[in-house]
């Protein structure tokens, strides 16, 4: 039996792999490339299990017509779901074809060898190959979940043979992103956004609309949803600007100017006790065993995905059929949500995935898709290429919720940490379009609330999955005698929020790893030793020891220098990552990252360069959230609307990396995309404390926040 949801939903070989007659094989997965290059790892697995040159493997871009439905591409699950399914599918194919070959050549199975799909035997001179045996037929066979796979330590050849087609296209500028889709004829389109999410469109200037129409610009209006389309992209941009200036909006509600952190603590909320990573209905009555004598509160503001490419989509509506090209992470869920909204049967909506720049979670992809679909329905018979502007992207994507983490512990007379309490306050981290759940499908698409009549999202119920959203990595891997963990889903907060890389784990781990260092300081023990004392998992300890061994060579004893450590196992079940970072805090109160050491255990590693890229990239992105990022807004407007008003990390603050992969060839694949983010934040905070004596509990660690903390201390 398998627990892999992708295999349970798509048990047939034919859903995943098919042989064409020209010496190539087509591989389909339902997970999408969002910059993380899952297709590279999948290509390698197929290449290894079938002994094929990767050049023979065609990775088919996912669509809702033929690709296996694997739900959402999220949570670092792709290797465990698609990777595992493809490995077993390929192994089943190999078993099947080898058996056919033995019959055809009349030789023993043990005598057969495969080289790049060609099958030979030492018992005969005759040969055959995969394509001759399969003759373009379907397998009509279930994947054997017990199929014998190639042992991990026999993987290797595919690394040398890696085709590298994507990266070649990237460096030559010929890699096709969704913005590069070129259908002829095609109109360019831009949405025209109101001042904020609580606005209602009263009127647009009819004269302006007439004038634009004369210049070939179509104005699309549906309730308060407003957009423009035309043949020339630059004219469309100008028209959007013109119509925006002439539109009159009514503000239905203003943002609450009270501090978001007060709102997180004071608003109505649902509080649930978390046990073994799962929210429970257990009573929250005071736990007498907890009895804390040390307490710290941490917070982080709203942050955004801030994708480099604005969200975009292509849509075409013709003869009651809607086609959409999108960079959504969940094409089947998007299709079902749009089918619900437009009252169309599922099979009349075809969705094709195309890459956009990295998105790191639920950004504006799905919202752009509905924008394009609404325009296509208003202007049928022609393809619409819709792009958001930079300001749209910054102001309208679903943000990652601000969070408050209250930690407390009891240090007993023997200097033992006898109890641990962690209560986290946050808005939801998952508001993806998901149909059929109390109308949460289309309602979670941005444009729906502006339609006439509007479709308003209902409050999202608490996520009760193991290590779900707010409570992801709420449970520390450290073992204490008593622990009390509480997730608080807070209502009536100002901004739309959804999934950003790691969901709640980044802030929870930042708080845990900072607090562990604070406890070490209190008890006067070494922070590394304290961690090792409260961990029982050997793989966790091995990661921590590996970074400490490396950072020990570094001299961080100069004034304003320091190094710190952070650790977590993502979701307490995926990759382990320890991070040590050496920082310097200069006179301008800027944190300079000098050296970062990462040690990770991700089970069997397929694409070593890909794993290192995810770890170092994850560190850099998390360092950016930690040091620079905070969404600013007043009672009316989002103020973080471009790269100047929402700065991110640049080349001037990239540390030297030393990344150590702990090899576990016999262990299952573990997702790696998010493991390093929380530990990176913890390590930076702990290093800044060593460098300056300042314990930063409120993110981001900007010079102005560091200065005001210094004044208070």
């Amino acid at each position, binding site marked *: 039996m398998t627990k892999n949801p992708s295999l349970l939903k798509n048990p047939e070989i034919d859903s995943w792999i098919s042989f064409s007659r020209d010496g190539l094989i087509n591989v389909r997965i339902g997970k999408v490339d969002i910059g993380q290059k899952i297709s590279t790892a999948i290509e390698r697995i197929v290449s290894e299990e079938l002994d094929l040159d990767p050049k023979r493997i065609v990775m088919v871009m996912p669509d809702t017509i033929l690709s296996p439905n694997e739900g959402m591409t999220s949570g670092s699950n792709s290797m465990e779901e698609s990777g595992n399914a493809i490995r077993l599918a390929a192994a089943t194919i190999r078993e099947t074809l080898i058996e056919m070959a033995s019959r055809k050549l009349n030789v023993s199975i043990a005598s057969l060898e495969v080289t790049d799909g060609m099958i030979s035997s030492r018992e005969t001179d005759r040969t055959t190959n995969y394509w001759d045996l399969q003759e373009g037929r379907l397998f009509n066979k279930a994947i054997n979940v017990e199929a014998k796979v190639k042992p991990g330590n026999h993987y290797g050849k595919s690394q040398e043979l890696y085709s590298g087609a994507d990266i070649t296209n*990237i460096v030559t*500028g010929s890699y096709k992103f969704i913005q590069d889709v070129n259908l002829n004829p095609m109109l360019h389109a831009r949405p025209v956004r109101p001042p904020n999410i609580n606005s209602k469109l009263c009127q647009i200037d009819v004269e302006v609309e007439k004038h634009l129409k004369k210049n070939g610009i179509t104005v699309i209006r549906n309730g308060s949803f407003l957009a423009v389309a035309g043949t020339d992209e630059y*004219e469309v941009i100008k028209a959007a600007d013109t119509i925006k200036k002439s539109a009159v909006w009514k503000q239905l509600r203003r943002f609450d100017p009270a501090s978001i952190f007060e709102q997180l603590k004071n608003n109505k909320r649902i509080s649930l006790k978390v046990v073994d990573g799962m929210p429970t209905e257990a009573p929250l009555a005071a736990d007498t065993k907890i009895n804390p004598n040390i307490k710290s509160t941490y917070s982080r503001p709203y942050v955004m995905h801030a994708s*480099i490419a604005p969200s975009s989509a292509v849509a075409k509506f013709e003869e009651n059929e809607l086609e959409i090209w999108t960079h959504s992470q969940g094409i089947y869920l998007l299709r079902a949500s749009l089918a619900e909204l437009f009252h169309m049967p599922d099979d009349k909506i075809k969705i094709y995935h195309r890459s*956009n720049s990295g998105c790191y979670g639920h950004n504006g992809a799905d919202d752009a898709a509905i924008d394009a679909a609404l325009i296509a329905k208003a202007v049928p018979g022609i393809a619409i290429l819709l792009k958001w502007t930079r300001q749209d992207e910054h102001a309208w994507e679903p943000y990652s919720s601000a969070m408050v983490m209250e930690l407390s512990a009891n240090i007993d007379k023997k200097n033992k940490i006898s109890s641990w309490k962690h209560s986290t306050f946050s808005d939801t981290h998952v508001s993806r379009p998901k149909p059929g759940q109390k109308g949460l499908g289309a309602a979670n698409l941005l444009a729906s609330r502006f339609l006439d009549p509007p479709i308003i999202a209902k409050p999202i119920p608490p996520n009760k999955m193991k290590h779900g959203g707010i409570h992801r990595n709420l449970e520390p891997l450290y073992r204490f005698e008593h622990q009390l963990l509480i997730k608080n889903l807070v209502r009536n907060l100002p901004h739309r929020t959804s999934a950003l890389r790691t969901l709640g784990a980044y802030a929870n781990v930042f708080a845990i790893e900072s607090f562990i260092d604070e406890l070490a300081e209190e008890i006067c023990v070494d922070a590394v030793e304290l961690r090792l004392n409260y961990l029982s998992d050997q793989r966790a300890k091995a990661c921590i020891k590996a970074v400490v061994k490396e950072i020990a060579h570094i001299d961080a004893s100069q004034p304003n220098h320091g190094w710190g450590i952070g650790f977590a196992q993502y979701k307490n079940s995926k990759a382990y990552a320890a991070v040590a970072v050496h920082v310097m805090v200069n006179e301008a109160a800027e944190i300079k990252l000098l050296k970062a050491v990462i040690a990770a255990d991700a089970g069997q590693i397929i694409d070593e360069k890909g794993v290192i890229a995810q770890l170092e990239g994850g560190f850099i992105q998390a360092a950016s959230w930690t040091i620079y990022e905070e969404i600013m807004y007043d009672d009316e407007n989002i103020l973080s609307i471009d790269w100047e008003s929402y700065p991110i990390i*640049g080349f001037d603050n990239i540390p030297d990396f030393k990344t150590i992969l702990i090899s576990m060839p016999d262990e299952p694949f573990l997702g790696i995309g998010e493991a390093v983010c929380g530990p990176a934040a913890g390590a930076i905070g702990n290093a800044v404390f060593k460098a300056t004596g300042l314990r930063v509990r409120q993110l981001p660690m900007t010079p102005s926040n560091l200065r005001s903390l210094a004044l208070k201390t």
Partner: protein
Amino acid sequence: MIDFTLRINRENYDVTAMTDTPLLFVLRNNLNLKGSKLGCGLEQCGACAVLVNGESTFSCAVAASSLVGKSIITIEGVSEGGTLSVIQKAFLTEIAAQCGYCTPGMIIATTALFNKNPNPKKQDILEALQKHLCRCGSHARILAAINNMQLDHPQND
């Protein structure tokens, strides 16, 4: 709308556009050269960079009609005759990209730098790239690619 001729990737192109149409839209929409990317349209991210007379220029905010008589090289023109440039090869070998959206701009900035200064110091490299944003965090590999290239192809002082 006006007609003019642009010299792009060593060839002449006749263009019809508005006087203020940014070069980026002319490249992508009129000439189907889609390697230069639209990231912000505000000269803040560098995804749209091209070489104008050898200088790295953000094409999202410069009017195409103002570039008549100048030599424009886009990412498509960096590799001459289908052969990757040394810089492209260095990015390829190091896999110095995650999603790849910012990569054409990064390669243009690096090309402009090396055209001017074949032996840049680390500080020169950081300055040349500072205006270019990358959200995937591929910075370290981009710097490694440039560094490896300098080791492989040392320039004489």
